[in-house]
Protein backbone atom coordinates (compact mmCIF):
# COMPACT_ATOMS: atom_id res chain seq x y z
CA UNK A 1 0.00 0.00 0.00
CA UNK A 2 2.76 2.41 0.92
CA UNK A 3 4.53 1.36 -2.28
CA UNK A 4 1.51 2.33 -4.35
CA UNK A 5 1.13 5.69 -2.59
CA UNK A 6 4.80 6.34 -3.25
CA UNK A 7 4.41 5.52 -6.92
CA UNK A 8 1.33 7.74 -7.13
CA UNK A 9 3.22 10.63 -5.56
CA UNK A 10 6.14 10.13 -7.90
CA UNK A 11 3.83 10.05 -10.91
CA UNK A 12 2.14 13.24 -9.81
CA UNK A 13 5.57 14.87 -9.52
CA UNK A 14 6.44 13.78 -13.06
CA UNK A 15 3.07 15.05 -14.29
CA UNK A 16 3.65 18.40 -12.59
CA UNK A 17 7.16 18.69 -14.03
CA UNK A 18 5.79 17.74 -17.43
CA UNK A 19 3.06 20.40 -17.21
CA UNK A 20 5.77 22.97 -16.51
CA UNK A 21 7.88 21.80 -19.46
CA UNK A 22 4.92 21.64 -21.85
CA UNK A 23 3.73 25.08 -20.82
CA UNK A 24 7.20 26.45 -21.43
CA UNK A 25 7.47 24.74 -24.80
CA UNK A 26 4.09 26.09 -25.88
CA UNK A 27 5.46 29.57 -25.32
CA UNK A 28 8.12 28.78 -27.92
CA UNK A 29 5.57 27.84 -30.57
CA UNK A 30 5.37 30.05 -33.62
CA UNK A 31 2.80 32.81 -33.10
CA UNK A 32 0.91 33.73 -29.94
CA UNK A 33 -2.82 33.92 -29.19
CA UNK A 34 -3.09 37.69 -29.63
CA UNK A 35 -1.25 37.63 -32.95
CA UNK A 36 -3.75 35.02 -34.10
CA UNK A 37 -6.67 37.24 -33.01
CA UNK A 38 -5.21 40.17 -34.91
CA UNK A 39 -4.70 38.03 -37.99
CA UNK A 40 -8.37 37.04 -37.77
CA UNK A 41 -9.67 40.62 -37.42
CA UNK A 42 -8.05 43.39 -39.47
CA UNK A 43 -9.81 46.12 -37.44
CA UNK A 44 -7.66 45.47 -34.38
CA UNK A 45 -4.86 48.00 -33.93
CA UNK A 46 -1.54 47.77 -32.10
CA UNK A 47 -3.12 49.55 -29.12
CA UNK A 48 -5.88 46.94 -29.05
CA UNK A 49 -3.23 44.23 -29.03
CA UNK A 50 -1.58 45.72 -25.96
CA UNK A 51 -4.96 46.08 -24.27
CA UNK A 52 -5.89 42.47 -25.10
CA UNK A 53 -2.57 41.21 -23.79
CA UNK A 54 -3.23 42.99 -20.50
CA UNK A 55 -6.80 41.67 -20.44
CA UNK A 56 -5.69 38.03 -20.80
CA UNK A 57 -2.71 38.51 -18.50
CA UNK A 58 -0.21 37.88 -21.29
CA UNK A 59 1.92 40.84 -20.19
CA UNK A 60 2.61 39.05 -16.92
CA UNK A 61 5.80 37.11 -16.27
CA UNK A 62 5.89 33.60 -17.59
CA UNK A 63 5.96 31.82 -14.22
CA UNK A 64 2.92 33.72 -12.97
CA UNK A 65 0.97 32.77 -16.09
CA UNK A 66 1.97 29.14 -15.58
CA UNK A 67 0.73 29.10 -11.98
CA UNK A 68 -2.58 30.67 -12.98
CA UNK A 69 -3.03 28.17 -15.77
CA UNK A 70 -2.20 25.31 -13.40
CA UNK A 71 -4.77 26.55 -10.90
CA UNK A 72 -7.43 26.64 -13.61
CA UNK A 73 -6.53 23.14 -14.84
CA UNK A 74 -6.70 21.83 -11.26
CA UNK A 75 -10.26 23.17 -11.07
CA UNK A 76 -11.13 21.32 -14.26
CA UNK A 77 -11.27 24.43 -16.42
CA UNK A 78 -9.51 23.39 -19.60
CA UNK A 79 -10.53 26.37 -21.68
CA UNK A 80 -11.84 26.69 -25.19
CA UNK A 81 -10.44 25.07 -28.32
CA UNK A 82 -9.78 27.65 -31.02
CA UNK A 83 -9.46 25.06 -33.79
CA UNK A 84 -12.64 23.11 -33.10
CA UNK A 85 -14.65 26.04 -31.71
CA UNK A 86 -15.90 24.14 -28.69
CA UNK A 87 -14.76 23.60 -25.07
CA UNK A 88 -11.57 21.54 -24.87
CA UNK A 89 -13.34 18.83 -22.88
CA UNK A 90 -15.92 18.36 -25.64
CA UNK A 91 -13.15 17.95 -28.19
CA UNK A 92 -11.01 15.61 -26.04
CA UNK A 93 -13.80 13.31 -24.83
CA UNK A 94 -14.88 11.71 -28.13
CA UNK A 95 -11.27 11.59 -29.34
CA UNK A 96 -10.26 9.72 -26.20
CA UNK A 97 -13.09 7.22 -26.74
CA UNK A 98 -12.02 6.66 -30.36
CA UNK A 99 -8.38 6.14 -29.41
CA UNK A 100 -9.33 3.78 -26.59
CA UNK A 101 -11.41 1.70 -29.01
CA UNK A 102 -8.56 1.59 -31.53
CA UNK A 103 -5.91 0.78 -28.90
CA UNK A 104 -8.02 -1.91 -27.24
CA UNK A 105 -8.74 -3.72 -30.52
CA UNK A 106 -5.11 -3.41 -31.65
CA UNK A 107 -3.84 -4.76 -28.34
CA UNK A 108 -6.31 -7.65 -28.51
CA UNK A 109 -5.13 -8.53 -32.02
CA UNK A 110 -1.44 -8.23 -31.07
CA UNK A 111 -1.90 -10.54 -28.06
CA UNK A 112 -3.99 -13.03 -30.04
CA UNK A 113 -1.13 -13.28 -32.52
CA UNK A 114 1.73 -13.13 -30.05
CA UNK A 115 0.79 -15.28 -27.06
CA UNK A 116 -0.07 -18.63 -28.74
CA UNK A 117 2.85 -18.24 -31.14
CA UNK A 118 5.23 -17.40 -28.30
CA UNK A 119 4.13 -20.46 -26.33
CA UNK A 120 4.39 -22.70 -29.39
CA UNK A 121 7.83 -21.30 -30.30
CA UNK A 122 9.15 -21.94 -26.79
CA UNK A 123 8.38 -25.67 -27.01
CA UNK A 124 11.36 -26.35 -29.25
CA UNK A 125 13.92 -23.51 -29.11
CA UNK A 126 15.92 -23.42 -32.33
CA UNK A 127 13.28 -25.41 -34.21
CA UNK A 128 11.60 -24.37 -37.45
CA UNK A 129 8.60 -22.75 -35.78
CA UNK A 130 10.88 -20.87 -33.39
CA UNK A 131 12.87 -19.44 -36.31
CA UNK A 132 9.71 -18.42 -38.13
CA UNK A 133 8.30 -16.76 -34.99
CA UNK A 134 11.61 -14.98 -34.42
CA UNK A 135 11.63 -13.62 -37.96
CA UNK A 136 8.04 -12.42 -37.57
CA UNK A 137 8.96 -10.73 -34.28
CA UNK A 138 11.93 -8.93 -35.83
CA UNK A 139 9.95 -7.77 -38.86
CA UNK A 140 7.14 -6.62 -36.58
CA UNK A 141 9.38 -4.42 -34.40
CA UNK A 142 11.29 -3.13 -37.46
CA UNK A 143 8.44 -2.14 -39.74
CA UNK A 144 7.53 1.57 -39.89
CA UNK A 145 3.91 1.75 -38.72
CA UNK A 146 2.85 4.40 -41.21
CA UNK A 147 4.30 2.46 -44.14
CA UNK A 148 2.63 -0.77 -43.04
CA UNK A 149 -0.62 1.19 -42.95
CA UNK A 150 0.00 2.60 -46.42
CA UNK A 151 0.74 -0.87 -47.78
CA UNK A 152 -2.44 -2.29 -46.26
CA UNK A 153 -4.38 0.60 -47.81
CA UNK A 154 -2.71 -0.07 -51.16
CA UNK A 155 -3.68 -3.75 -51.06
CA UNK A 156 -7.07 -3.84 -49.33
CA UNK A 157 -8.52 -0.45 -50.25
CA UNK A 158 -6.95 0.45 -53.60
CA UNK A 159 -6.21 -2.89 -55.21
CA UNK A 160 -8.91 -5.17 -53.82
CA UNK A 161 -11.38 -2.46 -52.85
CA UNK A 162 -12.63 -4.43 -49.86
CA UNK A 163 -12.21 -1.87 -47.09
CA UNK A 164 -12.32 1.91 -46.69
CA UNK A 165 -8.93 3.65 -46.51
CA UNK A 166 -9.99 6.01 -43.73
CA UNK A 167 -12.47 8.73 -42.97
CA UNK A 168 -13.98 7.29 -39.80
CA UNK A 169 -16.52 9.56 -38.16
CA UNK A 170 -16.67 10.08 -34.40
CA UNK A 171 -18.25 7.54 -32.10
CA UNK A 172 -20.76 10.11 -30.96
CA UNK A 173 -21.91 11.06 -34.46
CA UNK A 174 -24.26 8.53 -35.89
CA UNK A 175 -24.24 7.00 -39.31
CA UNK A 176 -23.07 3.76 -40.80
CA UNK A 177 -23.83 1.51 -37.84
CA UNK A 178 -21.66 -1.18 -36.29
CA UNK A 179 -20.76 -2.93 -39.57
CA UNK A 180 -19.47 0.30 -41.05
CA UNK A 181 -17.50 0.97 -37.88
CA UNK A 182 -15.91 -2.46 -38.02
CA UNK A 183 -14.94 -1.92 -41.67
CA UNK A 184 -13.25 1.34 -40.70
CA UNK A 185 -11.52 -0.32 -37.77
CA UNK A 186 -10.10 -3.23 -39.75
CA UNK A 187 -7.08 -1.61 -41.40
CA UNK A 188 -5.85 0.60 -38.53
CA UNK A 189 -6.26 -2.28 -36.08
CA UNK A 190 -4.42 -4.67 -38.41
CA UNK A 191 -1.61 -2.12 -38.79
CA UNK A 192 -1.16 -1.55 -35.06
CA UNK A 193 -1.69 -5.21 -34.21
CA UNK A 194 0.96 -6.45 -36.63
CA UNK A 195 3.44 -3.74 -35.65
CA UNK A 196 2.78 -4.39 -31.96
CA UNK A 197 2.80 -8.19 -31.77
CA UNK A 198 6.57 -8.62 -32.18
CA UNK A 199 7.68 -7.46 -28.77
CA UNK A 200 4.94 -9.44 -26.96
CA UNK A 201 5.93 -12.49 -28.98
CA UNK A 202 9.56 -12.16 -27.91
CA UNK A 203 8.58 -11.53 -24.28
CA UNK A 204 6.20 -14.47 -24.20
CA UNK A 205 8.79 -16.84 -25.67
CA UNK A 206 11.52 -15.63 -23.31
CA UNK A 207 9.23 -15.85 -20.27
CA UNK A 208 8.16 -19.40 -21.16
CA UNK A 209 11.78 -20.47 -21.59
CA UNK A 210 12.73 -18.85 -18.27
CA UNK A 211 9.98 -20.78 -16.50
CA UNK A 212 10.88 -24.05 -18.21
CA UNK A 213 13.99 -24.45 -16.06
CA UNK A 214 12.20 -24.20 -12.71
CA UNK A 215 11.77 -27.05 -10.28
CA UNK A 216 7.98 -26.93 -10.26
CA UNK A 217 7.97 -27.74 -13.97
CA UNK A 218 10.07 -30.82 -13.33
CA UNK A 219 7.80 -31.80 -10.44
CA UNK A 220 4.71 -31.47 -12.60
CA UNK A 221 6.33 -33.58 -15.27
CA UNK A 222 7.39 -36.17 -12.67
CA UNK A 223 3.82 -36.35 -11.40
CA UNK A 224 2.86 -37.50 -14.87
CA UNK A 225 1.37 -34.32 -16.37
CA UNK A 226 1.31 -34.39 -20.15
CA UNK A 227 3.50 -31.86 -22.01
CA UNK A 228 0.54 -29.69 -23.00
CA UNK A 229 -0.80 -29.60 -19.44
CA UNK A 230 2.63 -28.64 -18.06
CA UNK A 231 2.95 -25.94 -20.70
CA UNK A 232 -0.51 -24.41 -20.37
CA UNK A 233 -1.47 -25.32 -16.81
CA UNK A 234 1.80 -24.61 -15.05
CA UNK A 235 4.37 -22.69 -17.10
CA UNK A 236 1.98 -20.32 -18.86
CA UNK A 237 0.45 -19.05 -15.63
CA UNK A 238 3.78 -17.84 -14.34
CA UNK A 239 5.12 -16.73 -17.71
CA UNK A 240 2.13 -14.41 -18.13
CA UNK A 241 3.23 -12.32 -15.14
CA UNK A 242 6.11 -10.48 -16.86
CA UNK A 243 4.13 -10.30 -20.10
CA UNK A 244 1.21 -8.59 -18.31
CA UNK A 245 3.64 -6.05 -16.89
CA UNK A 246 5.08 -5.33 -20.33
CA UNK A 247 1.60 -4.87 -21.78
CA UNK A 248 0.68 -2.30 -19.13
CA UNK A 249 4.00 -0.51 -19.59
CA UNK A 250 3.42 -0.36 -23.33
CA UNK A 251 0.31 1.81 -23.07
CA UNK A 252 2.45 4.85 -23.78
CA UNK A 253 4.08 3.20 -26.77
CA UNK A 254 0.70 2.11 -28.04
CA UNK A 255 -0.37 5.70 -27.86
CA UNK A 256 2.53 6.83 -30.08
CA UNK A 257 1.73 4.09 -32.56
CA UNK A 258 -1.90 5.10 -32.48
CA UNK A 259 -0.93 8.69 -33.32
CA UNK A 260 0.68 7.54 -36.57
CA UNK A 261 -2.11 5.13 -37.48
CA UNK A 262 -4.69 7.83 -36.74
CA UNK A 263 -2.89 10.19 -39.12
CA UNK A 264 -2.60 7.63 -41.91
CA UNK A 265 -6.21 6.44 -41.61
CA UNK A 266 -7.77 9.80 -40.67
CA UNK A 267 -9.07 8.22 -37.45
CA UNK A 268 -10.50 10.96 -35.19
CA UNK A 269 -8.53 10.04 -32.05
CA UNK A 270 -6.34 11.67 -29.41
CA UNK A 271 -3.07 11.40 -31.31
CA UNK A 272 -4.38 13.12 -34.39
CA UNK A 273 -6.11 15.70 -32.21
CA UNK A 274 -2.84 16.56 -30.45
CA UNK A 275 -1.01 16.69 -33.77
CA UNK A 276 -3.62 19.02 -35.27
CA UNK A 277 -3.72 21.17 -32.14
CA UNK A 278 0.06 21.61 -32.12
CA UNK A 279 0.16 22.33 -35.83
CA UNK A 280 -2.83 24.68 -35.68
CA UNK A 281 -1.63 26.76 -32.71
CA UNK A 282 -4.54 25.60 -30.56
CA UNK A 283 -2.75 26.14 -27.25
CA UNK A 284 -5.51 25.09 -24.83
CA UNK A 285 -6.28 21.88 -26.67
CA UNK A 286 -2.61 20.97 -27.18
CA UNK A 287 -1.75 21.54 -23.51
CA UNK A 288 -4.66 19.50 -22.19
CA UNK A 289 -4.15 16.76 -24.78
CA UNK A 290 -0.46 16.39 -23.97
CA UNK A 291 -1.12 16.34 -20.23
CA UNK A 292 -3.79 13.70 -20.69
CA UNK A 293 -1.42 11.60 -22.82
CA UNK A 294 1.27 11.86 -20.13
CA UNK A 295 -1.21 10.96 -17.41
CA UNK A 296 -2.31 7.89 -19.38
CA UNK A 297 1.27 6.73 -19.83
CA UNK A 298 1.99 7.17 -16.13
CA UNK A 299 -1.23 5.39 -15.22
CA UNK A 300 -0.04 2.52 -17.41
CA UNK A 301 3.17 2.17 -15.44
CA UNK A 302 1.33 2.23 -12.11
CA UNK A 303 -1.06 -0.35 -13.51
CA UNK A 304 1.97 -2.48 -14.42
CA UNK A 305 3.19 -2.37 -10.82
CA UNK A 306 -0.26 -3.19 -9.47
CA UNK A 307 -0.70 -6.08 -11.88
CA UNK A 308 2.69 -7.41 -10.91
CA UNK A 309 1.89 -7.31 -7.21
CA UNK A 310 -1.55 -8.81 -7.75
CA UNK A 311 -0.33 -11.69 -9.92
CA UNK A 312 2.87 -12.53 -8.10
CA UNK A 313 2.45 -13.14 -4.36
CA UNK A 314 6.25 -13.04 -3.93
CA UNK A 315 6.23 -9.31 -4.72
CA UNK A 316 3.25 -8.53 -2.50
CA UNK A 317 5.08 -9.27 0.72
CA UNK A 318 7.81 -6.70 -0.11
Amino acid at each position, binding site marked *: MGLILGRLGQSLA*VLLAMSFVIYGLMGL*MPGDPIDLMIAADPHLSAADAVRLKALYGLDRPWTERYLRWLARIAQGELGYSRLFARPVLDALGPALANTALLMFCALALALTLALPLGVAASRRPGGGLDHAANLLAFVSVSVPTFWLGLMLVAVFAVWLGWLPAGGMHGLAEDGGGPVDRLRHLALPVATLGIAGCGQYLRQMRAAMLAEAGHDYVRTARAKGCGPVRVLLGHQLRNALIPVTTIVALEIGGLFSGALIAETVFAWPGM*GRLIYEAVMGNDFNLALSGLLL*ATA*MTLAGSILADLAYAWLDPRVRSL
Partner: protein
Amino acid sequence: MTVLARLRGDPVALVAIILLLALAVAAILAPWLAPDPESLDLAAMLAAPSLAHPLGTDELGRDVASRLLHGGRVSLAVAAATALLAGLTGTALGLLSGYGGGRLDAVLMRLTDGVMALPLLPLLIVLAALDPAKLGLAPDLLHSEAFAVGRIVVIVALVGWTQVARLVRAQTLAVKARDHVRAARAIGAGPVRIMLRHILPHVASPVLVATTLSVGHIILIESALSFLGLGVQPPLASWGNMLTGAIGTIWTSPAAALWPGLAILLTVLACNLAGDGLQRACDPRR
Protein backbone atom coordinates in the same frame (compact mmCIF):
# COMPACT_ATOMS: atom_id res chain seq x y z
CA MET B 1 36.48 -17.07 -27.90
CA THR B 2 36.61 -13.44 -28.85
CA VAL B 3 33.59 -11.38 -29.78
CA LEU B 4 34.65 -11.32 -33.43
CA ALA B 5 35.07 -15.08 -33.60
CA ARG B 6 31.63 -15.59 -32.09
CA LEU B 7 30.12 -13.12 -34.54
CA ARG B 8 31.69 -15.04 -37.43
CA GLY B 9 29.73 -18.11 -36.35
CA ASP B 10 26.42 -16.20 -36.50
CA PRO B 11 25.32 -16.06 -40.16
CA VAL B 12 22.23 -13.90 -39.53
CA ALA B 13 24.19 -11.21 -37.71
CA LEU B 14 26.92 -11.35 -40.37
CA VAL B 15 24.44 -10.81 -43.20
CA ALA B 16 22.87 -7.95 -41.24
CA ILE B 17 26.24 -6.27 -40.64
CA ILE B 18 27.26 -6.68 -44.30
CA LEU B 19 23.93 -5.19 -45.39
CA LEU B 20 24.46 -2.21 -43.08
CA LEU B 21 27.97 -1.68 -44.42
CA ALA B 22 26.68 -1.89 -48.00
CA LEU B 23 23.98 0.67 -47.18
CA ALA B 24 26.57 2.97 -45.62
CA VAL B 25 28.82 2.71 -48.71
CA ALA B 26 25.86 3.34 -51.03
CA ALA B 27 24.88 6.38 -48.94
CA ILE B 28 28.41 7.80 -49.02
CA LEU B 29 28.77 7.21 -52.76
CA ALA B 30 25.25 8.48 -53.59
CA PRO B 31 26.38 11.69 -55.36
CA TRP B 32 28.52 9.63 -57.75
CA LEU B 33 26.14 6.69 -58.14
CA ALA B 34 22.97 8.59 -58.86
CA PRO B 35 22.08 11.74 -60.78
CA ASP B 36 20.51 14.83 -59.22
CA PRO B 37 17.57 13.69 -57.02
CA GLU B 38 15.85 17.05 -57.34
CA SER B 39 15.71 17.38 -61.13
CA LEU B 40 12.09 17.41 -62.27
CA ASP B 41 10.75 15.72 -65.35
CA LEU B 42 7.13 16.86 -65.46
CA ALA B 43 6.54 14.97 -68.71
CA ALA B 44 7.19 11.71 -66.89
CA MET B 45 5.33 11.94 -63.59
CA LEU B 46 4.76 8.66 -61.75
CA ALA B 47 6.34 6.78 -64.64
CA ALA B 48 6.71 3.02 -64.51
CA PRO B 49 10.20 1.57 -64.06
CA SER B 50 12.35 1.91 -67.19
CA LEU B 51 16.02 1.92 -68.14
CA ALA B 52 16.32 5.64 -67.45
CA HIS B 53 14.45 5.34 -64.14
CA PRO B 54 15.00 1.83 -62.71
CA LEU B 55 12.36 2.32 -59.98
CA GLY B 56 10.18 4.78 -61.89
CA THR B 57 9.52 8.42 -61.02
CA ASP B 58 7.55 10.12 -58.24
CA GLU B 59 4.65 12.58 -58.34
CA LEU B 60 6.94 15.39 -59.59
CA GLY B 61 8.79 13.26 -62.10
CA ARG B 62 11.88 12.82 -59.94
CA ASP B 63 13.87 9.63 -60.25
CA VAL B 64 12.83 7.36 -57.35
CA ALA B 65 16.06 5.34 -57.32
CA SER B 66 18.31 8.36 -56.94
CA ARG B 67 15.99 9.93 -54.35
CA LEU B 68 16.13 6.65 -52.48
CA LEU B 69 19.94 6.75 -52.46
CA HIS B 70 20.16 10.41 -51.49
CA GLY B 71 17.33 10.02 -48.98
CA GLY B 72 19.14 7.09 -47.43
CA ARG B 73 22.21 9.31 -47.12
CA VAL B 74 20.17 11.78 -45.06
CA SER B 75 18.27 9.16 -43.04
CA LEU B 76 21.39 7.17 -42.19
CA ALA B 77 23.46 10.25 -41.34
CA VAL B 78 20.70 11.55 -39.06
CA ALA B 79 20.34 8.15 -37.38
CA ALA B 80 24.09 7.71 -36.88
CA ALA B 81 24.56 11.24 -35.52
CA THR B 82 21.55 10.90 -33.21
CA ALA B 83 22.63 7.50 -31.92
CA LEU B 84 26.12 8.89 -31.28
CA LEU B 85 24.82 11.98 -29.46
CA ALA B 86 22.29 9.98 -27.44
CA GLY B 87 24.93 7.32 -26.68
CA LEU B 88 27.45 9.90 -25.47
CA THR B 89 24.86 11.68 -23.32
CA GLY B 90 23.60 8.43 -21.86
CA THR B 91 27.14 7.19 -21.16
CA ALA B 92 28.15 10.42 -19.45
CA LEU B 93 25.02 10.56 -17.30
CA GLY B 94 25.18 6.85 -16.51
CA LEU B 95 28.83 7.09 -15.43
CA LEU B 96 28.13 10.14 -13.27
CA SER B 97 25.07 8.54 -11.74
CA GLY B 98 26.69 5.18 -11.06
CA TYR B 99 30.04 6.46 -9.84
CA GLY B 100 28.77 9.57 -8.08
CA GLY B 101 26.01 7.74 -6.22
CA GLY B 102 24.02 9.39 -3.45
CA ARG B 103 21.87 12.37 -4.22
CA LEU B 104 23.31 12.88 -7.72
CA ASP B 105 22.34 9.31 -8.57
CA ALA B 106 18.83 9.77 -7.16
CA VAL B 107 18.24 12.98 -9.13
CA LEU B 108 19.61 11.62 -12.42
CA MET B 109 17.67 8.36 -12.16
CA ARG B 110 14.39 10.14 -11.35
CA LEU B 111 15.07 12.30 -14.42
CA THR B 112 15.64 9.15 -16.49
CA ASP B 113 12.43 7.56 -15.17
CA GLY B 114 10.55 10.77 -15.90
CA VAL B 115 11.77 11.01 -19.50
CA MET B 116 11.05 7.30 -20.04
CA ALA B 117 7.51 7.76 -18.76
CA LEU B 118 6.66 10.44 -21.30
CA PRO B 119 4.54 9.80 -24.38
CA LEU B 120 7.37 9.94 -26.90
CA LEU B 121 5.77 10.88 -30.17
CA PRO B 122 3.42 13.68 -29.01
CA LEU B 123 6.37 15.22 -27.16
CA LEU B 124 8.62 14.97 -30.22
CA ILE B 125 5.93 16.63 -32.30
CA VAL B 126 5.87 19.58 -29.90
CA LEU B 127 9.66 19.84 -29.92
CA ALA B 128 9.79 19.64 -33.70
CA ALA B 129 7.09 22.30 -34.08
CA LEU B 130 8.90 24.86 -31.89
CA ASP B 131 9.91 28.15 -33.45
CA PRO B 132 13.71 28.24 -33.14
CA ALA B 133 13.67 32.01 -33.67
CA LYS B 134 12.11 32.35 -30.21
CA LEU B 135 15.18 30.65 -28.73
CA GLY B 136 17.25 33.61 -29.91
CA LEU B 137 19.20 31.87 -32.67
CA ALA B 138 20.56 33.83 -35.64
CA PRO B 139 18.04 33.93 -38.50
CA ASP B 140 20.51 33.11 -41.31
CA LEU B 141 21.55 30.01 -39.39
CA LEU B 142 17.93 28.90 -39.15
CA HIS B 143 17.46 28.60 -42.88
CA SER B 144 20.50 26.46 -43.59
CA GLU B 145 20.06 22.82 -44.52
CA ALA B 146 22.56 21.75 -41.86
CA PHE B 147 20.47 23.40 -39.13
CA ALA B 148 17.32 21.63 -40.27
CA VAL B 149 19.08 18.27 -40.10
CA GLY B 150 20.94 19.10 -36.87
CA ARG B 151 17.68 20.12 -35.26
CA ILE B 152 16.08 16.71 -35.69
CA VAL B 153 19.26 15.06 -34.40
CA VAL B 154 19.15 17.12 -31.19
CA ILE B 155 15.41 16.62 -30.70
CA VAL B 156 15.49 12.85 -30.97
CA ALA B 157 18.71 12.57 -28.93
CA LEU B 158 17.05 14.66 -26.20
CA VAL B 159 14.66 11.80 -25.43
CA GLY B 160 16.78 8.89 -26.69
CA TRP B 161 19.57 8.70 -24.10
CA THR B 162 17.69 6.99 -21.27
CA GLN B 163 18.26 3.33 -22.17
CA VAL B 164 22.03 3.78 -22.43
CA ALA B 165 22.16 5.80 -19.21
CA ARG B 166 20.45 2.99 -17.29
CA LEU B 167 22.70 0.31 -18.78
CA VAL B 168 25.88 2.27 -18.10
CA ARG B 169 24.79 3.05 -14.55
CA ALA B 170 24.12 -0.59 -13.76
CA GLN B 171 27.44 -1.66 -15.27
CA THR B 172 29.30 1.16 -13.49
CA LEU B 173 27.88 0.08 -10.14
CA ALA B 174 29.20 -3.43 -10.76
CA VAL B 175 32.65 -2.35 -11.99
CA LYS B 176 33.05 0.29 -9.26
CA ALA B 177 33.39 -2.36 -6.59
CA ARG B 178 36.12 -4.29 -8.43
CA ASP B 179 39.66 -4.44 -7.12
CA HIS B 180 41.33 -2.57 -9.97
CA VAL B 181 39.12 0.46 -9.34
CA ARG B 182 39.83 0.36 -5.61
CA ALA B 183 43.53 0.02 -6.36
CA ALA B 184 43.43 3.03 -8.68
CA ARG B 185 41.67 5.05 -6.00
CA ALA B 186 44.22 3.93 -3.42
CA ILE B 187 47.13 5.26 -5.48
CA GLY B 188 45.35 8.59 -5.73
CA ALA B 189 43.61 8.62 -9.13
CA GLY B 190 40.89 11.29 -9.36
CA PRO B 191 37.24 10.49 -10.10
CA VAL B 192 37.43 11.67 -13.73
CA ARG B 193 40.45 9.51 -14.44
CA ILE B 194 38.85 6.49 -12.78
CA MET B 195 35.62 6.93 -14.72
CA LEU B 196 37.34 7.35 -18.08
CA ARG B 197 40.31 4.99 -17.76
CA HIS B 198 39.13 2.29 -15.40
CA ILE B 199 35.36 2.06 -15.77
CA LEU B 200 34.55 3.23 -19.30
CA PRO B 201 36.39 0.35 -21.05
CA HIS B 202 34.24 -2.11 -19.12
CA VAL B 203 30.96 -0.49 -20.09
CA ALA B 204 31.92 -0.17 -23.78
CA SER B 205 30.35 -3.40 -25.00
CA PRO B 206 26.85 -2.90 -23.55
CA VAL B 207 26.93 0.66 -24.88
CA LEU B 208 27.87 -0.63 -28.33
CA VAL B 209 24.99 -3.11 -28.28
CA ALA B 210 22.47 -0.58 -27.01
CA THR B 211 23.61 2.01 -29.57
CA THR B 212 23.34 -0.42 -32.47
CA LEU B 213 19.85 -1.38 -31.37
CA SER B 214 18.94 2.28 -30.94
CA VAL B 215 19.96 3.18 -34.51
CA GLY B 216 17.05 1.12 -35.81
CA HIS B 217 14.65 2.73 -33.37
CA ILE B 218 15.91 6.20 -34.28
CA ILE B 219 15.45 5.56 -38.01
CA LEU B 220 11.83 4.64 -37.26
CA ILE B 221 11.29 7.80 -35.20
CA GLU B 222 12.99 10.07 -37.75
CA SER B 223 11.00 8.59 -40.62
CA ALA B 224 7.74 8.96 -38.67
CA LEU B 225 8.51 12.61 -37.88
CA SER B 226 9.56 13.32 -41.47
CA PHE B 227 6.42 11.56 -42.67
CA LEU B 228 4.34 13.89 -40.47
CA GLY B 229 6.16 16.82 -42.07
CA LEU B 230 8.18 17.68 -38.95
CA GLY B 231 11.53 16.07 -39.65
CA VAL B 232 13.75 16.44 -42.70
CA GLN B 233 12.12 19.05 -44.92
CA PRO B 234 11.58 18.73 -48.69
CA PRO B 235 13.08 19.22 -51.25
CA LEU B 236 15.83 17.41 -49.32
CA ALA B 237 14.80 13.77 -49.57
CA SER B 238 14.62 11.38 -46.63
CA TRP B 239 12.93 7.99 -46.59
CA GLY B 240 10.23 9.35 -44.31
CA ASN B 241 9.30 12.43 -46.32
CA MET B 242 9.32 10.48 -49.59
CA LEU B 243 6.34 8.61 -48.14
CA THR B 244 4.50 11.85 -47.37
CA GLY B 245 4.33 12.42 -51.13
CA ALA B 246 3.30 8.83 -51.69
CA ILE B 247 0.24 9.04 -49.42
CA GLY B 248 -1.28 11.61 -51.80
CA THR B 249 -0.85 9.36 -54.82
CA ILE B 250 -1.87 6.09 -53.14
CA TRP B 251 -5.06 5.86 -55.24
CA THR B 252 -3.40 6.52 -58.59
CA SER B 253 -0.09 4.72 -58.11
CA PRO B 254 0.05 2.64 -54.94
CA ALA B 255 3.45 1.21 -55.89
CA ALA B 256 5.15 4.59 -55.29
CA ALA B 257 4.95 4.03 -51.53
CA LEU B 258 6.68 0.67 -51.74
CA TRP B 259 10.37 1.50 -52.08
CA PRO B 260 11.11 4.07 -49.33
CA GLY B 261 9.25 1.96 -46.77
CA LEU B 262 11.02 -1.19 -47.88
CA ALA B 263 14.34 0.64 -47.49
CA ILE B 264 13.40 1.68 -43.94
CA LEU B 265 12.21 -1.83 -43.06
CA LEU B 266 15.40 -3.49 -44.36
CA THR B 267 17.70 -1.01 -42.64
CA VAL B 268 15.93 -1.19 -39.29
CA LEU B 269 15.71 -4.97 -39.54
CA ALA B 270 19.45 -5.14 -40.24
CA CYS B 271 20.18 -2.86 -37.24
CA ASN B 272 18.05 -4.97 -34.92
CA LEU B 273 19.50 -8.27 -36.13
CA ALA B 274 23.06 -6.93 -35.95
CA GLY B 275 22.44 -5.53 -32.45
CA ASP B 276 20.92 -8.82 -31.34
CA GLY B 277 23.90 -10.74 -32.75
CA LEU B 278 26.36 -8.36 -31.08
CA GLN B 279 24.55 -8.83 -27.80
CA ARG B 280 24.85 -12.59 -28.05
CA ALA B 281 28.50 -12.33 -29.09
CA CYS B 282 29.40 -9.96 -26.23
CA ASP B 283 27.47 -11.85 -23.60
CA PRO B 284 27.26 -15.55 -24.53
CA ARG B 285 25.44 -16.46 -21.32
CA ARG B 286 22.25 -14.86 -22.58
